[in-house]
């Protein structure tokens, strides 16, 4: 996810500009001022955000592995585990989140094709990014609705260990999805201002798909009776 963001050339002092464009491989820079032309914006080489997003995903994976092992141990430690029936809306939410990933992928391909000189205008992928954003928000709202349904059944955070884990896992996942929504909003903003880099979009997309996969994993974990 390379998110290096390009600074508009007008605020770069001239000597900085020449230095930045003089980079070479092995960590050197290859950032060329683009004068507002999206197609000419280049990334750092290699883009730190491409590495960074994997670092982020590794750390989130570790956190959810810790939660998973806690869930497994807790489930086996006493007989008070009452397996709850998942609210049906979760399955609909899953479809919404998967659809958002598809929409984001469509947007990403269009941006890539546009940057490579294809025929789409930059406004075209923006539409798909808005659709992704909307579906993401719908997912978070849907999760909230699922919590309301559980509350209506009298299942609260402390009711039994299964409901505790349900609320904790879904809430922390929703928090991470909200971070992804912030990232998407940032991508849209940058695309509109013609200062988006491909690496920024790629990193956001990786993160978003990761949230997708993580949700499917959590759903299985909560659904399965281990």
């Amino acid at each position, binding site marked *: *996810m*390379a*998110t*290096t*963001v*390009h*600074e508009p050339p007008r605020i*770069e002092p001239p*000597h*900085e500009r020449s*230095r*930045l464009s003089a*980079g*070479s*491989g*092995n*960590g*050197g820079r290859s950032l060329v001022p683009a004068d507002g032309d999206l197609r000419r914006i280049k990334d*750092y080489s*290699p*883009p*730190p*955000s*491409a*590495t*960074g*997003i994997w*670092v*982020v995903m*590794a*750390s989130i994976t*570790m*956190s959810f*592995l*810790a*939660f998973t*092992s*806690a869930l497994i*141990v*807790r489930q086996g*430690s*006493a*007989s*008070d*585990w009452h397996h709850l029936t998942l609210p049906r809306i979760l399955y609909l939410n899953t479809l919404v989140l998967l659809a958002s990933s598809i929409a984001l992928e469509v947007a990403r391909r269009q941006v890539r094709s546009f940057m490579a000189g294809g025929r789409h205008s930059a406004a075209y992928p923006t539409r798909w990014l808005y659709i992704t954003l909307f579906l993401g928000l719908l997912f978070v709202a849907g999760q909230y609705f699922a919590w309301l349904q559980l509350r209506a059944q009298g299942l609260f*955070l*402390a009711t039994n*260990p299964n409901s*505790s884990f349900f609320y*904790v896992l879904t809430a*922390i996942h929703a928090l991470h999805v909200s*971070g992804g929504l*912030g*990232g998407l909003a*940032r991508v849209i903003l940058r695309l509109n201002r013609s200062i988006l880099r491909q*690496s*920024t979009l790629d*990193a*956001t997309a990786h*993160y978003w798909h990761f949230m997708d996969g993580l949700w499917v994993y959590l759903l299985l974990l909560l659904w399965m009776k281990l």
Partner: protein
Amino acid sequence: MHDMSAHVAHHAPPTSFIRKHIFSLDHKVIGKQYYGLALIAVLVGMVLSWLMRIHLGWTNYAIPGLHFLSSNGAPGNVMTPEYYLQLMTMHATIMVFFVLTTAPFAAFGNYFLPIQVGAEDMPFPHFNMMSFWVTFVGFVVLIASFFVSDGPTLGGWTQYAPLSAVGAVGGPGEGMGVVLWASSIAIFCVGQLLGSLNFITTTLDMRTKGMSLWRLPLSAWGWFITSCMGLTAFAVLMPACILLILDHVAGTSFFVPSNLVLNDQLQPHAGGSTLLWQHLFWFFGHPEVYIAIVPGMGIVSHVLITNMRKPMLSHRVLIYSFGALAVLSYMVYGHHMFVSGMNPVSSLAFSFPTLIITIPSTIIVLIWMGSLYGAKLHTNTACLFALGFISMFISGGVSGFFLAQPSTDIMLHATYFVVGHFHMVMGVAAMFGIFAGTYFWFPKMFGRMMNETLGKVHFWLTFVGAYCIFMPFHYLGLAGNVRRYQAFANVDYMAHLVPLHRFITISALLTGASQLVFLYNLIHSRFWGKPATDNPWQATSLEWSTPTTPPPHNNFGDKLPEVFHDPYQYGVESSVGDYVMQASPEQVSSGHDEA
């Protein structure tokens, strides 16, 4: 986590005071902020240890003014048993998190990692700034627990459940104190995760032309490997803290078992697992030991090589050994739980890798010793502290062999033997690494030299003092002196050990007081020290190639350096002397190129 790299490398020099010194994006300022935080934390932690030591030597002694700290904990200035445990918990938490993690890793790493790889800054400067301020907030939250009604938590820095999870019924500080403790640590984890993100991407993506991974100095390798550990370890501690907080504030039962009766009250929890907390905690806790020590190993190697004027016997084997420590550190954590009631088969499974991990540790020490053999050593203060690090690491590490085996550990685990072991191998050794780094890099950070005479006085007082304090701990442990007790005089078999405790207390007070020499040297040299040249130690790595000292805002001025050599080209003949700098294109005859 998204993309802050927009500002990478070319955020303009700040002009306002706030941007320059407080909410700075400059990795050098952030490094100094971390150092300052660690300095405040270590002073607080040291004063707490003095209070505990005085109490251990003279149990009923009224420490003047102690009731100002806590009127409940010290009525008439005499410490209550509970308050002793509260101070012990805070001493350990402050030292482990806010000193041993913060100074060698976050402080020096922030300042020097980008410079040593030849970058203008870290790729995500906003996250870097956040990482410091989040850590600072974590420290404030922890210190705030001194000021809540029943004071800070008394559960020890390991916060074993169920005591830590039952709330106020567990004793003073077990209510709000634990909530603040767990919140502080969770916040600290966020800061360290943000820091690790920057450290890893800096090392992998920001290296300048010619700087291959093998050409990184050993200090940079230390920080890189530590950040990989931090990324995985703190990511596990944070969920554990969240679950612990929920057991307190939301009435969940993650860690509290059924039918627990405390103070004649049946606890309203059911079915939780106390061992679960220990597993989650120590999965972080053991890597944390290496998070504290591996940066020190890198710094010490870096300092020693410069003063030996020759490279280590093997640059690569040292790096592989650092890596082996990191990987194995996740497989050994169960050795902290030999007496926890864990299945004995698990104990055996954890004992084996614990013995294995001594192999990379031994290799590292042997490489240091072998490289030192026959070297014409420049014994400046930084070098002395680096040697002191090795001494402490060996002395403290040897006792690890006994503790690695369940059969002997069961005898020694709850005694001062363990206290002596970890204080030497992790605490004092890491402190010596911090001191070595401070004396070595101070000229670059502040443009002035530290006073060498005062530095040497500081070293010898600290070195002798540390041995006087922590060596007797091993004897106390073998004599059966249990740890975490606040008084021994009334226990027959321990009463005769009290004089030794008094000796330790006096040593601790004197050694602590001798740190004033360091503090004076630090502050005096900062303002009135002899001006430093760009490369006072005639060293080779990139931090000594900056155009000014301290380095300019973007580290290298108009042109990023290009790297032509391995990091430690000493013992060669060049136009500048017996070394050639990494950024110098000069070709020399007899190098030690290994990469």
